[in-house]
């Protein structure tokens, strides 16, 4: 299988897993033409590699030709978190680093055992510091939203391969406003299979419609007063800025965007490739300062 990553934030935009030249016997991640990676790209590369390794496929990562982006993948621990025996092709950048724990979280394995520790040690302080620094009001809402996505990954998305999380903040110097981004990519059974555990939703056969259903308040594969996590992610964060939220699972994808003043929109897509597990990407932009 080939995953060809071209341009800016390809996994968040249009990159696909295709059968390409390598067929089903191996995975080749071609990042040679990658020019900008967001947390979804970082966590998605690692999750896909682990899924493939779990299926006994040899994995190759072709590093970016752009040395800056190569260094960024190194800095964000993409190379460190790749499965054992991954073949890395290209010039491996030096691994020098400063402590940027108030601005980012490198790609990190996420499990039921580590989720609360990550929240306590990294997520909470990072988000609080970022929103305090930029005068944003949404720290508690964003921490809560990230917590829901982490909890979903370790609760519904459990698998032997695990889940991966990455966070990056952007100061807004080169864009219009400070922005927080987090991605969680698990390799579990996916949204539709989870939802179908509840007989009320057992009729679902299309991933994108199952994801859209799961975003509605009170919809759960487990029942018993649950199923508000995803709707809370959307409802609370958009009160404090601009939200762009994406979930992909199986052959489906749903994107939501919104703010306090505008109704959010949902566009379920069917994807030509298959996401093994569930990938969630949250981007929260603070309101422009007057």
């Amino acid at each position, binding site marked *: 299988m080939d995953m060809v990553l071209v341009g800016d934030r390809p996994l968040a935009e249009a990159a696909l897993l295709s059968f390409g030249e390598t067929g089903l016997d191996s995975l080749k991640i071609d990042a040679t033409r990658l020019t900008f990676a967001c947390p979804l790209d970082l966590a998605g590369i690692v999750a896909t590699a682990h899924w493939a390794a779990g299926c006994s496929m040899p994995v190759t990562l072709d590093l970016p030709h752009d040395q800056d982006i190569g260094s960024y993948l190194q800095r964000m621990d993409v190379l460190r978190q790749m499965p054992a025996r991954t073949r890395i092709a290209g010039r491996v950048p030096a691994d020098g680093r400063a402590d940027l724990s108030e601005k980012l979280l490198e790609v990190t394995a996420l499990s039921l055992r580590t989720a609360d520790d990550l929240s306590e040690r990294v997520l909470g302080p990072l988000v609080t510091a970022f929103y305090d620094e930029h005068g944003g009001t949404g720290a508690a809402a964003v*921490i809560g939203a990230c917590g829901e996505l982490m909890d979903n990954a370790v609760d519904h998305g459990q698998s032997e391969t695990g889940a991966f999380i990455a966070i990056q903040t952007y100061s807004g110097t080169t864009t219009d406003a400070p922005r927080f981004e987090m991605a969680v990519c698990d390799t579990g059974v996916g949204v539709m299979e989870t939802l179908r555990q509840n007989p009320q939703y057992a009729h679902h056969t299309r991933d994108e419609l199952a994801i859209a259903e799961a975003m509605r308040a009170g919809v759960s594969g487990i029942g018993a007063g649950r199923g508000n996590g995803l709707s809370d992610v959307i409802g609370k964060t958009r009160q404090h800025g601009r939200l762009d939220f994406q979930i992909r699972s199986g052959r489906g994808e749903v994107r939501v965007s919104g703010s306090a003043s505008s109704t959010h929109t949902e566009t379920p897509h069917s994807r030509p490739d298959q996401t093994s597990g569930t990938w969630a990407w949250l981007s929260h932009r603070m309101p422009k300062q007057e």
Partner: protein
Amino acid sequence: MTEATTFQVRAILGKYPVTRSRGKDGRDRLDDILSGYNGLDLTIDFSGVEAMNQSFVDEFLGRFLVSHDFGATDATVKVTGLDEDTRFSIVVCVERRDTQVAILDSGALTLVGDKFLAETFEKALTLGTFRATALAEELKLSAQNANNRLKRLTAAGALRKSQVTGSSRGGKEFEYTVVSSHVADGQPLTPA
């Protein structure tokens, strides 16, 4: 004889609790505390909790509240130490679970949940220790309606019911006392 204890959420479950697993851990601890005592005044103190997600709150507090009839063990329960964000999370949790809980904020008690029960609780606060008939008169309710509301408030741990001794009237008579606004220290109780 009542005893009082405070469950410090920040110290036990953290400043940023976000998983159902952590919520269940906390709820198990609350269950353990409650199981050892009759007449316990339990305060759940969220001071120092900076942020928490709704799933954690539901697993920790929501399921704790709906899984107990606090009146059966003469227990009272209140929540304190909330800021605007954590209070909102508690209110949402209580609404979704269709239950109620007393909140202590700056020394003042209120009840979140059903609006009729909140109104009843507010009146109960002005009465202090009272009998059902007094509440029925104050709120112009039938005795049955007043008793129904008192039963639900007692089950939610917002009131404590005790039998009146030496009643001149036939049958059992009860009086009700509003949950105490006193907050005990966070030291663990000795085994009952």
